[in-house]
Structure formats: C-alpha cells, structure tokens
C-alpha cells in the first residue's frame, strides 16, 4: 500500500515536471495577458487568433471581465494591458503607478432593441424618449410620446419591460452617457457610469443576457451592442441625433459620429450625441490601455508591434464583425503615440 502510494506520487511528479520546465526556461512563446471590456470581445478574439497565426511566438490571453475590471487589474499590474469602453478618469489615472496610454481600437454602436411582433417597420426613438422609458415614466408601447415619433405604426397596448445590464459594463456607460446628455432628468436621477441605480426594469447578464431577455419577453426593450442585435436577429430602432435626423446604427453612421469629433491628444473622448447630420448618436470608441514605461521591455515591444498590426491589418477585419474601423487621422495620431512607448 505504501509502495503503491510512493510510486503513484512519483508518477504524478514526473508528469508535471517536464511541462513546468518548458514554460519557465523556453523563451520561444511570449504570453501577454490582458483583461477588460466585453463590448469588443468578438473582434479582439479574432485579432489575437489571427495575430498568433502570423506571429506564432506571441500569444495574447484576453479575459472579458468588464471595463472596470480591466482598469482595476491594469492598475494592480496583474495584467499587461487593459481594455475599456470608458476612458479612465483623472482619479483612476492618478491612482496608477505609472502613466497609462489610451489606444482607440475600433468603433462600435449600442442600439435600442425591442420585441414587438406587431410592428413591422423599425421604430424611431429620441434620446429624451429613451430616457423617459428607462426612468419608468413611459410605461406602455402605445404611449403618445412614442406614437408622436412613429405616426402610422400599429403600437400595441403592451407594457414596456425595460431590460438593462445586471453587472457593471462599458455598454451601460455608453448608453447612460448618451441619455444623460439628452435628458437632464436622467442625468440627475441616474447619471452615467458602468453600474447605475436603475429606476425600473430587469437585469440581464452580459450583452447576451440582455439579448436573451429581449428576445423572450414580448414588449421588452433593451440596449445591446450592434453585433448582438444583428446576429440574434432582434429588431432595433433608429435614434434621433443632435441634428434632428433619425439614424439607424450602421458602419457608416458610426464612422460619421467619430469624424464629427476632434480627437484630443490623450485620446480620451466621448462621441455620444455628436454633431453631424448622418452621425449615429450612441457610438463609442473602445480603448486598449497600457503603461507608457513598462519594466518588461520585451513585452512592451511585442505589445507595440501588436498595436501596429491592429491599427493596420486588424482594421480590415472589423467590418465583418459589425465594428467600424478607425478614421485614418486617428490611426496616424495613434502611430505617433506608439513612439512614446519605451521598449
């Protein structure tokens, strides 16, 4: 009995041994760990996979734990880069041990999706109307406020079931940022953040949780990322922008939103509710964040090389996943910022 136990233990150690040696002594594969937003998770997954095929010695591990989580882990230096749909605040930047650079990667859109089998044409919403719905003031689909923007639509007398995110999310931030800009009452009562106090509604987990709830509940309205609405074939509405036009989210309208805003030098900007006739008002950049002077020079160089690839070849893959590529002016500016990363 004792002998078999010792033999078993030895066999187990043997099994672990050689593998351990491989990862610590071999410098062939460089692993870069990152964490953050779920909003760009589809495109990041594709990028890291394609980059690995082109550069087999660099492997990027990304955990989609949410924008806030990404910022927290980057500040704690447990990951090499973070990803967020919300630019870091001054307070968060100050709390970090070193200067952090923001790199916009793609543009995305958040759409108001709904489940109304009776309505065939896409509905039109304004920011103020969406805010009233999410404040719980507009309770039924045949409310005069909705009918005013959608004359001729056969709106049923169904109750509106508001669906929001149960966990903290950058998508929530983009949505609340837009509603705060278009409704002073929403700004005062709820405000913008990755997790807010929702006056009404049901919480779903992740973009997929919200999509699932909207799809299953007749009369539901929920905000989700454009690609989830397209892939799950959920109807979504057009939103009125600052110029007064009702714009449906699409790659062109999102790019128009980015074009209408001047990019500051630190790349921290919100593009919700921009000027521009064709701009879709609930668009956002999403950022990759990493330190300007990391101590790990090898990883810093690998990260900079990856960013260069993402800003050039990577941009070609965005449209297939319904993200809009970055405007060329922004790409040029980012290439300049990449020079600052010491490696």
């Amino acid at each position, binding site marked *: 009995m004792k002998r078999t136990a010792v033999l078993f233990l030895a066999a187990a150690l043997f099994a672990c041994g050689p593998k351990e040696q491989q990862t610590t002594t071999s410098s062939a594969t460089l692993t870069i760990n990152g964490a953050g937003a779920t909003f760009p998770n589809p495109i990041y997954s594709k990028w890291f996979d394609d980059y690995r095929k082109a550069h087999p010695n660099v492997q990027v591990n990304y955990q989609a734990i949410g924008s806030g989580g990404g910022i927290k882990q980057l500040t704690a230096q447990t990951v090499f880069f973070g990803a967020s749909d919300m630019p870091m605040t001054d307070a968060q930047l100050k709390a970090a041990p070193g200067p952090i650079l923001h790199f916009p990667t793609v543009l995305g859109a958040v759409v108001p999706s709904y489940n109304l089998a009776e309505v065939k044409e896409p509905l039109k919403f304004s920011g103020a109307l969406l805010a009233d719905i999410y404040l719980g003031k507009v309770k039924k689909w045949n409310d005069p406020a909705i009918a005013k923007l959608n004359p001729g639509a056969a709106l049923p007398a169904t109750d509106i079931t508001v669906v929001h995110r149960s966990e903290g999310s950058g998508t929530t931030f983009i949505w609340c940022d837009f509603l705060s800009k278009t409704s002073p009452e929403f700004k005062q009562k709820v405000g913008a953040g990755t997790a807010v*106090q*929702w006056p009404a509604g049901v919480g779903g987990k992740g973009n997929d949780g919200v999509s699932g*709830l909207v799809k299953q509940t007749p009369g539901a309205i929920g905000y989700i990322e454009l690609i989830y609405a397209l892939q799950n074939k959920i109807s979504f509405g057009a939103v009125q922008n600052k110029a007064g036009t009702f714009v449906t989210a699409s790659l062109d309208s999102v790019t128009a939103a980015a074009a209408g805003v001047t990019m500051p030098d630190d790349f921290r900007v919100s593009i919700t509710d921009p000027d521009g006739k064709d701009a879709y008002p609930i668009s956002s950049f999403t950022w990759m964040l990493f330190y300007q002077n990391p101590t790990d020079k090898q990883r810093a160089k690998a990260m900079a090389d990856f960013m260069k690839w993402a800003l050039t070849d990577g941009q070609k893959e965005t449209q297939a996943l319904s993200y809009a590529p970055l405007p060329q002016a922004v790409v040029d500016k980012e290439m300049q910022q990449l020079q600052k990363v010491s490696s």
Partner: protein
Amino acid sequence: MTRGDDRSFRLFTGAVAGLILVTIVGLAFELSRQSALSIAKFGLKFWIGTTWDPVAGNFGALPFIWGTLYSAILALLLATPIALGIAIFISELSPRMLRQPLAYLTELLAAIPSIVYGLWGIFVLVPLVRKLEIALPASLRKLPLFSGPPLGVGMGTAAVILAIMVVPFTSSVAREILKNVPMAQREAAYALGATRWEAIKAAISYGKTGVVGAVMLGFGRALGETMAVTMVIGNSPHVSASLYAPQYTMAAVIANEFTEAADELYLHALIEIGLLLFIITIAVNMTSRLLVRRTAR
C-alpha cells in the same frame, strides 16, 4: 503500532480540525477588514438601507437580504414536502426493484452544475412560468402575492429552481434517516394496530432530529446558490412580496458586480454583503442546531 504513533495521529487529526477553525476565523476577519470603508460609512444602516446606487456611492443591503431569505424560504416550502415524499416512497413504499434506480436518479439531480440549471431555467422554465403567470385568473392577480407584469423572470421562477436544486439533498439525507429507524419501532406500531401511513408517521417522528437537519441542509444550499438564481430572478434590487417581481439576492449581486467595482467604497460595500451572507448563514445554522436540540428532548 506504538504509543508514539497514536499520539502523532492525534496531533495530526487535531491540527487538521484546528485548520477548519482557523479558516473560519480567518474568513470572518478578512471579510470585516476588506469591508471597513463601507462599515465605517453606513454602520448598521446598511442592513436596512434600500438604495443601491454605485454612481452616488450610496449602498444599502435590505433588498438583497430580503431576496435571499424570501427565495430560500419559498424554495424550502416547495421542496420539503416533495423531498420527504420521495424519501418516504423510496424507503418505505416502492417495490424493492425500483429503489436503487430512483435513488440514483434523485442523486443525479444533485450532481448537475448550478450553471446548467441556470441555462435550463432561462430557456425552458422562464417561458413556462411566463405562460402560467399570464394564465392566472385576474382575481388572484390582484393579490399582492401575484401582482405585477408577467415577465417570466422573478422571485417565483427563482424559488422553483432553488426547490429543484434542494430536493436531492434533503431527500437523500431523509432517506438515510428513515433507513436507520430500527425495525422494532415499525413492528411496534403495527402491533398496536397502526395503518401503513401511521407506521410511517411513527418512523418519521423517531428520526425527527435528522429530518430537521436534512431540511436545514437544503436551506443552507438555497441561501448560497448563485448562478442558477441570477439567471432567472431578474436582478432588480427591490423589496417586494410578489412572486412576479424581479428581485435580487446577495450571492447574485456579488457575482454580477464584483469585477466591475472599480472604486474602493463600491468594492467594500460588496464585500460587506458577503460578510452579511456569512453572518446570516451562521445564524441559520445555529438556529437549526437549537431546533434539533429542542426536538431531541
């Protein structure tokens, strides 16, 4: 085997037992330490506050405490008769051939991971509950217990899923208890002219303490269940008696909001909820032990 071996065996097992005590004390200590900011800011008001506003930094745990206790108690009310029924059937009434397969199937329910229950809940249970909620007659829907729009997700669905998850635990422990009731007790009951059902009742009252323990085990599971509950309860922090209303539990809010809690107060508030859950679980366990001791007399 020498006396030295005896002593070292005693020391070793004593150390392992002591490790458990150290773990519990360490857990309580860490939870309190990591929620210090929130305890300092809200004090006892945290237990009764109803706002949960991460933007303004205003936190109160009452909706979560309510949701956790309400869902667990409802699950217990649903699960206990069913679990006891299964236990009685398997140990007393079923044909000998069926006993093993039935016991195995019930225990299989316990082996299913919580997240699988959650997914089944979203795709199968929620639409079903929604249909039932709509079908309920309007006169009943006026009662506070059934008020609110029929969403499918809500306290009712969470209670059903928790009940399904609790049944295998309670029934397998109850079955063991009933099996251990000495034949003498049953034979005595029959000798006094008892019917089948009266004999079973006598057997149960003999094993009363164990059965109460089994029920409390189920209650403990229902209190801490996270993934299955968060997918069907609606995740809305409001106190409501209605089975239709979306509500929130302590375990669910921690699981949902922990990774995104970027500022210190938010994080400490969430950890304080963890501390509250810890305290409530200990209180429930102590109450059940008192109950067991009382009924044993």
